[in-house]
């Protein structure tokens, strides 16, 4: 009996103790728990659906669809596959939200919109609801997409409205959709449409200074109304204007709002905007217009999505500063923790050009920080930290894991290329990139392709293919070219083709980032944007190792 008691006691207590020890050991090793990565292609950055996808859906928010509009809206749909496809395009009409009026006002002249304001009290925050009536639904249009081709579709052909967006539903994957806005006075900008509707959008850069207009275009493609708040970060701190509190975007509509209108953000040289969607999901584009009459004589128009998901690393393949070209890297921290950020500049030809010391900046929650190149505060005799006339790429990375959003702005007063270009960086690297827009007209329009090798160890070999008249065109001298590890290459496409309508596909054997610059030669117009990765083998770069 004594033996069996001891045996059973030993085994039972051993099992129990073993389990508890195992549990304790497991607690001390929390690394086993995987945290879902929020940065995915298609969400953090527009991405083409992979092969075999049943459908792919694109949301093109910003632009006008009426004569004399501020930004004529054109859709650019590229089908680089071997199969004909069909796209169903549903235009969504919209209008500008009326500017806020004096606090007691409850009516506007616009019968289609109302603005109501509740006076603040001591116990509750003042709330403002801006609503615009939902537009009449527009019947969808079916568009054929022949293989290896690009289709352009003016939204104004589908609907006549002060503002109009579009939903493009394609019966398959591997299709890229961009949109283009053109202002008769301010130029043209091209950028990818979105493949996601999100609940938050971060716009690191924006200018509301005199002579500049910042237009946020909210598109709600869903049946139900959405509401949102916008918080602006300025040099003077955060601002939450009543006009953008509980801002309602009716279901299946587009609403545009000038940030600089009365009741919005005040006139500021730099405004970061954080859009928080209270209910529903939205797509938000920003159209920034400079008339050339601001303090810096900036001219041009930019178009771009915000960042729906902040990331720890943002890569900008292109970069160049000179006497007439300056650059800003705007880092915005939408989170609630302080971000420790490093901005690395990688110069071309590193053997000749020593790497400049990285910029280390601290970005407070809800605030922004700017790295200006060249440094405006440097004295005339100070050697520039980043040399002028040497092309470079930029990598913005958060060192303490706090996700951020980063945008690069290029202001060119160079006589050859005049204008302002802005683009978010790429939070991912991928082997295949699409550009639906673009084209070259000798002496009038130029297109520059810049590729960044996301690998610091291996050479990336790439080829560039154009989609021309239903055929894939391997651009001469752009086949099986190499990019050094961690380096970049910039390609002036006019040296390889003269197609006025040119959608291109970049295919590499390793993860890269592709950026495109569209320039108006001897005129106003710079449009820069990261390409559209194919959602296959997409990698999120490690902020420390990358």
């Amino acid at each position, binding site marked *: 009996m004594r033996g*069996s008691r001891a045996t059973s006691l030993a085994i039972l207590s051993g099992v129990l103790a073993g389990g*508890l020890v195992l549990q304790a050991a497991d607690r001390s090793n929390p690394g086993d728990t995987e945290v879902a990565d929020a940065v995915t292609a298609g969400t953090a950055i527009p991405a083409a659906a992979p092969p075999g996808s049943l459908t792919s859906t694109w949301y093109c928010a910003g632009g006008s669809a009426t004569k004399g509009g501020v930004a004529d809206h054109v859709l650019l749909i590229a089908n680089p596959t071997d199969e004909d496809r069909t796209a169903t395009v549903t235009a969504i009409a919209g209008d500008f939200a009326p500017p806020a009026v004096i606090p007691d006002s409850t009516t506007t002249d616009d019968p289609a919109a109302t603005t109501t304001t509740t006076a603040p009290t001591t116990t509750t925050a003042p709330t403002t609801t801006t609503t615009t009536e939902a537009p009449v639904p527009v019947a969808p249009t079916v568009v054929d997409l022949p293989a290896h081709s690009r289709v352009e579709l003016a939204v104004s052909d589908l609907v006549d409205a002060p503002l109009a967006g579009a939903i493009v539903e394609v019966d398959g994957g591997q299709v890229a959709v961009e949109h283009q806005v053109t202002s008769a006075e301010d130029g043209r900008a091209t950028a990818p449409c979105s493949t996601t509707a999100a609940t938050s959008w971060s716009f690191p850069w924006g200018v509301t200074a005199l002579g500049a207009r910042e237009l946020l275009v909210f598109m709600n493609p869903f049946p139900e109304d959405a509401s949102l708040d916008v918080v602006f970060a300025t040099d003077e701190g955060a601002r939450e204007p009543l006009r953008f509190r509980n801002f309602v975007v009716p279901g299946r509509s587009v609403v545009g709002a000038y940030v600089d209108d009365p009741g919005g953000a005040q006139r500021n040289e730099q405004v970061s905007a954080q859009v928080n969607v209270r209910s529903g999901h939205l797509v938000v584009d920003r159209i920034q217009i400079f008339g050339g009459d601001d303090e810096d004589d900036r001219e041009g128009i930019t178009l771009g999505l915000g960042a729906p998901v902040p990331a720890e690393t943002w890569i900008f393949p292109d970069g160049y500063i000179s006497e007439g070209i300056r650059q800003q890297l705007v880092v915005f921290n939408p989170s609630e923790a302080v971000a420790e950020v490093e901005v690395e500049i990688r110069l071309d030809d590193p053997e000749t050009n020593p790497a400049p010391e990285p910029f280390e900046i601290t970005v407070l929650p809800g605030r922004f920080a700017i790295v200006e190149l060249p440094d405006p505060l440097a004295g005339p005799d100070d050697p520039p930290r980043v040399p002028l006339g040497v092309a470079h790429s930029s990598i913005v990375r958060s060192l303490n894991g706090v996700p951020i959003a980063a945008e690069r702005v290029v202001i060119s007063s160079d006589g050859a290329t005049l204008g302002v270009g802005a683009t978010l960086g790429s939070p991912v690297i991928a082997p295949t990139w699409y550009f639906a827009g673009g084209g070259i007209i000798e002496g009038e329009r130029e297109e520059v392709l810049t590729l960044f090798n996301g690998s610091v160890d291996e050479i990336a070999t790439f080829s560039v293919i154009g989609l021309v008249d239903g055929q894939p065109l391997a651009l001469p001298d752009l086949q099986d070219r190499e990019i050094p590890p961690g380096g970049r290459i910039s390609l002036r496409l006019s040296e390889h083709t003269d197609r006025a309508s040119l959608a291109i596909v970049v295919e590499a054997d390793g993860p890269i980032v592709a950026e495109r610059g569209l320039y108006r030669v001897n005129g106003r117009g710079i449009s820069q944007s990261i390409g559209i990765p194919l959602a296959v083998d997409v990698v999120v770069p490690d902020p420390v190792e990358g």
Partner: protein
Amino acid sequence: METPPPGADAPDDAPLTTLPTAPAVVAVVVARDPGAWFEEALTAIAEQDYPNLSILVVDAHSADEVKPRVGRAAPGAFVRRLDDDPGFGAAANEVLEVVDGAAFYFLCHDDIAPKPDVVRILVEEAYRSNAAVVGPKLVEWNNPRRLLQVGQGMDHAGFGVPLVERGELDQSQHDAVRDVFTVPGACTLVRADLFSEIGGFDEGIDDFLDDVSLCWRAQIAGARVIVAPDARVRHRDHLAKSRGVNERRRTQARHRLRILLSCYGPVALAIALPQIILINLLEIVYALLAGRHRRAGDVVTAWTWNLRRLGELRVARQQVKGFRHVKDREVNRAMVRGSARLRQFGRGQIGRGEDRFSGLAKGGRGVADAFQSGSLRASASVWAVVVLVFLAGSRHLITRGVPAIGEMVSFSSSPLQMLREWVSGWRPAGLGSESPAPTAFGMLGALGFSFGGATGLLRTVLTIGLIPLGAVGAYRLPGPTRSRHAQIACLLVYVTIPLPYNALASGHWGALGLYAAAPTIVGLLAGAGGLAPFGSVGSATGPGMKPRRLRAHILSLGLVTAVLATLLPVAVVIVVGMALALALGGLLAISARGSARMVLAAIGGAGVAVALHLPWSLDFLLPGATLSALTGPERATGSSDLAALLRFQVGPLGSAPFGWCFLVAASLPLLIGRAERHAWAVRGWTLALVSFAAAWAAQRGLLPVSMPPVEVLLAPAAVGLALAAAMGVAAFEVDLPGYRFGWRQIASGLAAAAVVVGIVPVLGASFDGRWSMPAGDHRRTLSFIDAENDAEPFRVLWVGDPSALPLGSWRLDDGLAYGTTDRGTAGVEDLWVGSDDGPTRLIADALDLARTGQTARLGRLLAPMGVRYLVVPASLAPAPFSSTVIAVPASLTATLAAQLDLAPVDVPAGLTVYRNEAFVPPLAEVAAGRTLPTEGGIAAALPLDLSTLPPALPNDEGFLRWSGPVEAGTSVFLSAASSDRWRLEVDGQLAERTVPFDWANAYTVPADGNATLGFRTSPLRYGVLLLQALAWLWVLRLLLRRRLNGRVAALAIASVADEDHDEDDEAER
């Protein structure tokens, strides 16, 4: 036989012995297989000093004729032999046939020995007191100084009130002549003319309480009943002892009721009946709570026995009416006020083999004994507390209903609807299939009818009622240990383990079912193993455990498993797992004998359960079935804190330090137990540890297969610990005295304290009246869905964590499941969904397409499936009723929010509801000239806008049958899995069927007219179901015959030790 008439002229003051002729007395001795004492008894009667006594011996068909023995002991006695044994009363009535002219009858059992002056004293007292019935003082045969009875009173419900304590020392303290309601039936002097007038004894009462009947009837006739204690009669009480306490009690209950029903006049009976019924009900409740099912059965069968004899009762009442000279109220004055039964309860006398002969007389001595022997009084007290706490803790659930959370869905369907679903060959779950319906539909339908259609009450009983059921099982489990304290400990530990309350709070009905059945299952497994005290292996068999063949154990286990599997299909596997764990425990305890039988019984029982659930079982066995059909889809891995699991803290209850008490209490037998008590403690612990390990591994996602909810996995642990705790108490009583004083005594004290302290959390949890269940549920929030569904049917698609879904579901992804309802919100018929093999899987395919970003038109994909609403629960109940959030994967939320044709519906937090704007009615009319694609699968619906299709066949003709007008050339689309058993007839003409989208049904209408669409169930299915029903009845009948031996308690099949504390009590006496 001539005897002198009663002397009417006897002087008042002269002793009778001086009379020239004493009244003739005939002693009537009814002999019924008398024992060796018979001669002594006859001699004592023959030696009476009464001068005019004759003896008539009525031989009630004794096996050996008594005539020779009578001749030797009482040569002058007459003997009359009967052809059968009609019982004492009827046999004594023979005197009316064969004797004439007697003044008194001295009616005697064959086991009494009166002192020589008894007849004289009785006759003298009869004359002196003008009494017609006179009884003596009965004393014990072997110890005449101990009293047995000196007459007794009676209350209005027929329960006797003894005037002396049985076994009381006779010190002449009760020697006064007094009026009583009844006198001892073993020896009674009754005036002959009265006896004749009332027709003697009531012959409907063969034995027991015949004296009560006689005395009552005598009083109705105006006679006086007295006791003359100077007359001393020794009594062996052989009749009572020879029958056994159970038969005695059962017979008394029947006869008592017959006496009441026959002796009371109409008005008095109307007044007394409610009191009788109330007391009977209280007695039934008490008996059930005390685990004395036979006693409850006795009360019930007393009524059925009498109701079957209504004709006899009518005759008896007529007879009484014929000789009634005194009104009931006069007789009632002689009765005791109040209820003797309740007073007995108050004194702790009920249950100790109580009957007129033994229990009541123990009086105050029994109270002390009850405490000292830890027996019924203690059990009753503990049970009273348990019931009180349970009722207090469940009060809001009982009065306001159990909220529909988790698996505890509403019983919205009528019993008829449930039976129809069971019988039908079409199962609507998902997109429908021809798979067999769960047995539960049939059972719930039948139960619903037995509840008179009160399905809400049925639901309450089947949810919170499972907790007391488990408690009863736990109390009975250690019965064979012969220790009521062990039973009490097992009960206390089992009911204070937080598992059932956490299961209630999280809506895990299946876990409650296993909690209720687990003690019974362990008891059956133990019985099958035959290990002491559940069998004879190793030591003596405990009370109530009879050796049975393995086949009988298998049948018992099979039936219990089958009943449990109705609610929790995975129980078939769990029971085998429990047997393996117990067998492993046997190995650890170095007591492996019987383990193989245990496992064999479990496997066999599982086989029986599977067979009893045919054809439903095929759903889990045929190709295409997945394990998740049995266990439910994988759940999101929950808290893997082993310490919390050890405390059963899988819900609001179980936090430290109180949560550790059960483990402390259960540890005692491992330290002090010996022999089978130690072995069973090790088995209990092994069962618990295996259960904990399974739960832990499942919570951490370490197992390669899907597992049932953690509460289900922990239920065996609860019974394992409770069993160990019970063995600890048994060891305390049996083993501890063998040790010297030391740490073992201290450990025992700690264990006892742990049991007591462990009660605290449950007491605290009882305050809210609902065991932490939310006060509301999602039904009100989603009532608009029910309302719309009533107007136009559609499907609702539910997606989310399986724990949050109020219905049976299928796996979509890790921690993500989906299910459908087709009658609005979920009902009980949606709980068992079986396999999703077939078209139903297309729903998951559609969801996967959306989740992988391949479509933003999920609504269109779901439209042909008739899905109008998509519901994602993120809590068991809406705010503010529940603050517990069950995480919904962000990817799912984002996916659904990104769909262009799903419109969110404004509902309170805890739910996300989308309306499908592309919805197509499940029965839709397709215009002439338009055809639905028959290729391309679900994706073929993507480019189609079918939202404009109008509903078709609007008239609901009953289950799976619709009708309505149709036009030639149009089509009728039916959103159900393709089957040629669906048929559309237009005025008798069969419509051609196509298969749109590769899975649905569409019918081209051949002509204008009235169309009927319906599903034709295969006749084969009806045959199979008939066989299934017969199989259940066969097993039930077999078990009832074998195990219950004709007793009441139909479902006490499992039984462990039940019973026979009565026999223990008898032995104690």
